[in-house]
């Protein structure tokens, strides 16, 4: 009994399964798996309280490799399955592993509605900008003109900005990290774990088979310092190898300032992830190449009651108001009449 209730201290090993990991050698998914397996034991949650839900895709194989409860559902529907689960069992830690196709293409509607409702689930969106499992078609995050199996002369679709979409849908927690930035990724996952509502984390993930080197400009030693801007709450937006550039507001937009032009950190915007108005987070979501470095970190983090909290609260209120319903009363409700033993003709 007590053995079950007290939380034993867990380790990464506790979260590994006996199933062979079936990703291609070199796939970025390995790094993400490792980061999650390191963070989960730190959360002080008993293992049996974790559930990892996914859709379909290479990324969605994730649950098989996590020794928790897991549900590898159908393509694009993980947020819907997870919402039902979280409403039925609010005390569970429900995490979603999904891909850019699973979450942003077929699953787009469930994603935005989950974000709108602020359901208390954590969504890890593995963005490799390609359909991996089906062997390399372009996805809604693939860049314009991308040549793939289904677009031999280049795609004509403008891609989504996944964070703009999430913020536009009303997300309360939005962040971005990168598969191989293990430290940053783990920190981001911890931040997501702390959030009470929906946490949406875009993770740049390299698919070395069908879309290799999609993110090298920000992962390669020589380019990454110029290519990456870290959003840190309360700190000025400074970046560059020698921390010699920054971001400031110019009218309604953000712009890059170079300290060589006489600017300094004080001229930079001090990052605030917790503003009610989503506009600031949206501004930061536009910080992308070619005109800007890629912003990483937490874009938005505001505290609002989660969907399940409100649902449970309402059930409590009603129960308080009306008392725990009795089945007898329910059946008897409304106009009733009795047919006596010997029914008489009126």
């Amino acid at each position: 009994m007590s053995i079950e209730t007290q939380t034993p201290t867990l380790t990464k090993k506790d979260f590994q399964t006996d199933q062979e990991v079936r990703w291609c050698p070199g796939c970025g998914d390995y790094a993400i798996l490792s980061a999650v397996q390191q963070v989960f034991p730190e959360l002080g949650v008993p293992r049996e309280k974790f559930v990892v839900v996914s859709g379909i895709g290479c990324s969605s194989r994730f649950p098989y490799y996590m020794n928790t409860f897991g549900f590898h559902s159908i393509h694009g529907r993980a947020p819907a399955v997870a919402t039902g689960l979280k409403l039925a069992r609010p005390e569970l830690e429900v995490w979603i592993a999904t891909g850019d196709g699973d979450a942003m293409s077929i699953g787009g509607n469930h994603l935005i509605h989950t974000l709108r409702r602020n359901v208390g689930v954590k969504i890890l969106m593995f963005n490799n900008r390609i359909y991996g499992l089906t062997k390399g078609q372009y996805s809604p995050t693939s860049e314009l003109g991308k040549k793939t199996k289904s677009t031999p002369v280049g795609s004509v679709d403008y891609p989504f900005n996944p964070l703009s979409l999430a913020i536009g849908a009303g997300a309360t927690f939005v962040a971005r990290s990168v598969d191989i930035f293990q430290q940053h990724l783990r920190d981001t996952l911890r931040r997501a774990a702390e959030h009470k509502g929906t946490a949406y984390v875009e993770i740049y993930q390299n698919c070395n088979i069908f879309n290799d080197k999609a993110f090298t400009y920000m992962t390669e030693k020589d380019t990454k310092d110029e290519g990456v801007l870290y959003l840190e709450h309360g700190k000025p937006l400074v970046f560059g190898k020698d921390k010699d550039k920054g971001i400031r507001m110019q009218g309604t937009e953000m712009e890059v300032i170079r300290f060589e032009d006489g600017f300094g950190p004080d001229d930079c915007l001090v990052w605030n992830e917790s503003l009610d108005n989503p506009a600031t987070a949206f501004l930061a979501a536009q910080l992308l190449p070619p005109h800007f470095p890629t912003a990483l970190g937490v874009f938005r983090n505001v505290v609002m009651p989660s969907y399940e909290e409100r649902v449970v609260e309402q059930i409590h209120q009603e129960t308080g108001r009306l008392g725990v319903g009795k089945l007898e009363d329910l059946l008897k409700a409304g106009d009733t009449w009795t047919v006596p033993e010997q029914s008489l003709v009126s």
Partner: protein
Amino acid sequence: MSTTVAENERREIVTEKLDEVVIRFAGDSGDGMQMTGTQFTNTSALLGNDLSTLPDFPAEIRAPAGTLPGVSAFQVRIADYDIHTPGDAPDVLVAMNPAALKKELRDLKPNGIVIVNTDEFNQRNFARAGYASNPLEDGSLSRFRVFQVALTTMTRRTLEGSGLDNKSMDRCKNMFALGMCYWLFSRPMENTIKYLEKQFARKPQIAEANVKVLKAGWNFCDITELFHHRYEIPAATLEPGLYRNITGNTALALGLIAASRRSGLSLFLGAYPITPASDVLHELSQYKNYGVTTFQAEDEIAAVCSAVGASFGGALGVTVSSGPGIALKAEAMGLAVMTELPLIVCDIQRGGPSTGLPTKTEQADLLQVMFGRNSESPIPVLAPSSPKDCFDIALEATRIATRYMTPVVVLSDGYIANGSEPWKLPQVEDLPDLRVEFHTEAEGFRPYARNPETLSRPWAIPGTPGLEHRIGGLEKENVTGNVSYDPVNHENMVHLRAEKVARIAEDIPNVQVFGDLEGELLVLGWGSTAGAVTGAVNSARQQGLSVSRAHLRHLNPFPKNLGEVLARYDKVLVPEMNLGQLALLLRARYLKDILSLTKVKGLPFTRQEILQKIQQILEPKHVH
């Protein structure tokens, strides 16, 4: 002096006893005919009549006033004996405008009573209804007993000085009609008065006005010479007990709550509104203090997926929709088949294909729910036989879903869903014990180990230490539940899933025959045809025809004895509101030539239609 006149008159008023009467209230969508009919129904219920109702409203919220598409009707049949349908043809038609008269008259019995609101009988409305001339004058109603009443005028006169504007006054005119009917059929007004006072508690002025007009309608009959007859329909000798009048959708909702209580599972409904299923969502959303969680999802796919997620979490996962929505749930229902989780999918069928006729009834989703999923994906299917049976079906669906770890489909339809009948309240303790035990033993736990009897796998819910496991839509290795592409395992699993459902036949009642244990003809009904079939076969037998009847509540699997029962009759007739879907399943399974009586008009069968078919089969000579 009018009173004295009335007094004299009254002596002449004859009161007749009738064993039954069918009344249809018809008017504009805005005329409150549904409410009027419901009031007449409830009052009659309180008098102890057996009854059955059939609402019929347009797909549009409010089509243009006075037009045929705008007509909303409510038919109620009350009787002093046990009846099974709302009646084939009305004895009385209340027509609030020409369109209502035009649309509903065709069904009226010869010499039937028509009450019309003459205030609405003007050129503009004739045009809208498509009348070339005034039907009240061109003799087209000669076959009926027509009573012309200036309902609107009388209503306004009644409410003179009430301070209400004309619009509000006119809204009361349905109460005038109701008052008249109450007088005509000797019903007390108390119940409706109570209702009005409760309904308009916040608007006492409106309540008062309605009550006033109701009484005015009654008095109008009482003091005028309009009717020379009054009617009484004595109470039916129903089984003793506590009764309420209930619609199928309400019964289904209550049944689901009862199932949740009897199983010890909390009830989770994931639904997206759609006619005629929305009322189940509306109903259940009122019972939060019964621990019911209702989730209005963004679409039907999310609705069913959320229910699957809830079931995985150990709740009683339910989703409800109608044909087009069920089509969208197909893929996720397949997921529930593969993951072997309990799930209840209620399909309140409506007219199709596609968007079809949203407010009309049909039974044409049987093959969809049987086969509308990729690959071999067997699911048990149940169908309630009447509004009140929806309560019991919900319990049976829960029993099968949890005992066999399988999705279950409940096939109701618009006729049952909106129709109502008296329901004898069950004793809670008499309801089936559906207690469920989750798996808790970590030692030797195997997610796809099977109960040798039911072939079901353990229900091991998140939060249980040591039972961490993964499920999903890829083929599973039996016992371990690991992903497996092994050819032999796959074939084995396909057969196991099929066998699991087939075995339920061992666990459900045999089909019962009413009539002769063998003979010339068996009429086999399913779902909402039960009433009409019963009525028709009873009449046929009274006429001495050798015909028996049986009814199917379990459509997949079929009851064990079905094949052998069918074999005992020369001919088998299956009436269904589709092109012969159950017939197809029976023919394939039993290789017996099934006669189909099909009706796809968005309307239920009448007793007469089935009776005629029976006669045609048994004594073709008599039928020309």
